[in-house]
């Protein structure tokens, strides 16, 4: 480590057990290995054993997923509608591409294309950052909506994006927690902004002081740090395209409920959903008012007719809501499925949906931690690649980090369909 290359000058009369410098070994070949290949194979076996522990580690979470999904398939199906498939798909693509550049980087380290190696490792790093940027859009969006693990889950279709004051009032959060939940994107971006600023300062300082090596390191790292915000931008665009995702879900559920009475004519079905949303928009102070307003009497009259089952259900649902608003009792929700009262009854209760989001945050969060760790080792690799440490006999570190990176990709390959594509 301390010496420079000393490939030549074989020793003649050295004591063998002195662990000084073995001068017939290149500096990168550890003393206890006889050939570069032996060193490489040992390292590779070591990293494979580590990857085995990683798989066993993740298998615990996949097992929990399997149990919970088996017990509550409808919860998983319903809640996965809240995950934006577009974001998941784009992240899959980003991760696959980073796997390609990583595999290519291993090749470049073997063929000693140093410039390309640096560029490819930097690309892999940038992809990792884009992935995290998209992820923080996903997380912050859900946190603001209250799609949280059990215990903290407070999503309500009536008020999808509550303000901080509402979170304190209605859901009993402390003011600082509510502030965090409504501004979580800024909190997630802050560390990356600090890193980007730090790297920029480093770049300027190294340029001014004329440190060519540090400048060469800071340049790609600044691109890497900034690509996080590229990911945030990408996520924002895609998320805004999928805005009111939850609304659609609720509306779809409402439609579904109406469709169950075959002869409810379409205009009334639409009216029901509209009115349901109207109720949702009003605060609970207005709950006692009839959602059907002035038309209520007319609707009631029409509902007298035996064949008009759609309207009959509407009236029943309306009455149920009245009772509920008066704070008395709510009975047998299964009979009145035209109102909104049944929708939370399905999957969107804190107790049930929280389980899905608990699993979601656990699996994707641990995966994101692995991405962060991968970023750490890739930065180390990038600096060594700039130093041109690797050659066709010594490319082990690139290969090992590559294998780790591919495992991270492999886990995402399973996570994506299991969480985002349930239907």
């Amino acid at each position, binding site marked *: 480590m301390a010496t420079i290359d000393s490939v030549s000058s*074989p020793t003649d009369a050295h004591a*063998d*057990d002195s662990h000084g410098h073995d001068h017939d070994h290149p500096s990168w*070949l550890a003393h206890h290995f*006889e*050939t*570069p*290949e032996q060193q*490489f*194979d040992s390292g*590779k*076996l070591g990293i*494979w*054993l580590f*990857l*085995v522990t990683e*798989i*066993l580690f993740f*298998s*615990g979470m*996949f*097992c929990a997923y*399997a*149990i919970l999904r*088996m*017990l509550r398939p409808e919860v998983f199906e319903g809640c996965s509608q809240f995950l934006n*498939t577009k974001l998941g*798909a784009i992240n*899959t*693509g980003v991760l*696959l591409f980073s*796997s*390609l550049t*990583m*595999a*290519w980087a291993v*090749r470049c380290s*073997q*063929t000693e294309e140093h410039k390309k190696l640096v560029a490819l490792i930097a690309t892999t790093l940038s992809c990792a950052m884009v992935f995290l940027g998209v992820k923080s859009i996903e997380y912050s969006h859900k946190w603001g909506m209250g799609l949280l693990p059990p215990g903290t889950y407070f999503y309500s279709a009536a008020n999808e994006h509550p303000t901080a004051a509402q979170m304190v009032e209605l859901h009993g959060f402390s003011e600082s927690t509510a502030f965090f939940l409504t501004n979580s994107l800024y909190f997630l971006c802050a560390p990356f902004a600090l890193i980007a600023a730090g790297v920029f300062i480093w770049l300027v300082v190294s340029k001014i002081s004329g440190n060519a090596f540090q400048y060469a390191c800071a340049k790609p790292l600044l691109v890497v740090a900034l690509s996080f915000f590229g990911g945030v931008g990408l996520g924002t665009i895609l998320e805004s395209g999928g805005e009111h995702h939850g609304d659609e879900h609720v509306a779809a559920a409402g439609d579904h409920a109406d469709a169950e009475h075959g002869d409810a004519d379409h205009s009334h079905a639409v009216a029901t959903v509209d009115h349901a949303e109207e109720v949702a928009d009003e605060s609970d102070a207005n709950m006692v008012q009839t959602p059907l307003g002035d038309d209520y009497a007319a609707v009631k009259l029409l509902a007298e007719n035996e064949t008009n089952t759609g309207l009959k259900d509407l009236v029943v649902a309306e009455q149920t809501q009245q009772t*509920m608003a008066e*704070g*008395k*009792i*709510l*009975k*047998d929700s299964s009979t009145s499925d035209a109102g909104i009262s049944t929708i939370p009854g399905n999957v969107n209760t804190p107790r049930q949906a929280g389980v899905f989001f608990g699993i979601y945050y656990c699996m994707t969060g641990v995966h994101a931690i692995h991405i962060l760790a991968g970023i750490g080792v890739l930065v180390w690799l990038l600096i060594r690649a700039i130093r041109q440490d690797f050659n*066709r*006999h010594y*490319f082990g570190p690139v290969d090992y980090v*590559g*294998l780790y990176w*591919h495992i991270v*990709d*492999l886990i995402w*390959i*399973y996570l*994506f*369909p299991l969480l985002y*594509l349930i*239907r």
Partner: protein
Amino acid sequence: MSDHGHSANTDSAHSHDGHAEGDFAHPIPLPLLFGVFIALVFLTIVTVAQANFDLGSIDIAIVMFIATIKAVLVALFFMHLAFDKPFNLIVFLSSFVFVGLFVTITLSDAKMTSPANENIVDEVPVAVSVDL
């Protein structure tokens, strides 16, 4: 350990031709890498597209099948297992044996269908009065 300098030459000579010069590096040809990447992207599109169709109960099987093809492609080519020492493959696959044991044994008990177990808690009668 004792006669380090020379035995290194002889040992490596019979394991590999040319001491330390044996090219154990196996650069994967670029067309293969790109081909695998394109296949992976294609399979991702397929798996997203199939989510739009209701395929019923085989849905999860199809999804997992596609994911497994992708995983095998990544493992064989990106992770070089196709060209690697077989022992690494054995180590890797052995982990899945234990994952399989873990998941199947746990799942077989998760439903708690044995009469010794109590009823599943959530199956309460539908009509229940709840005081708000």
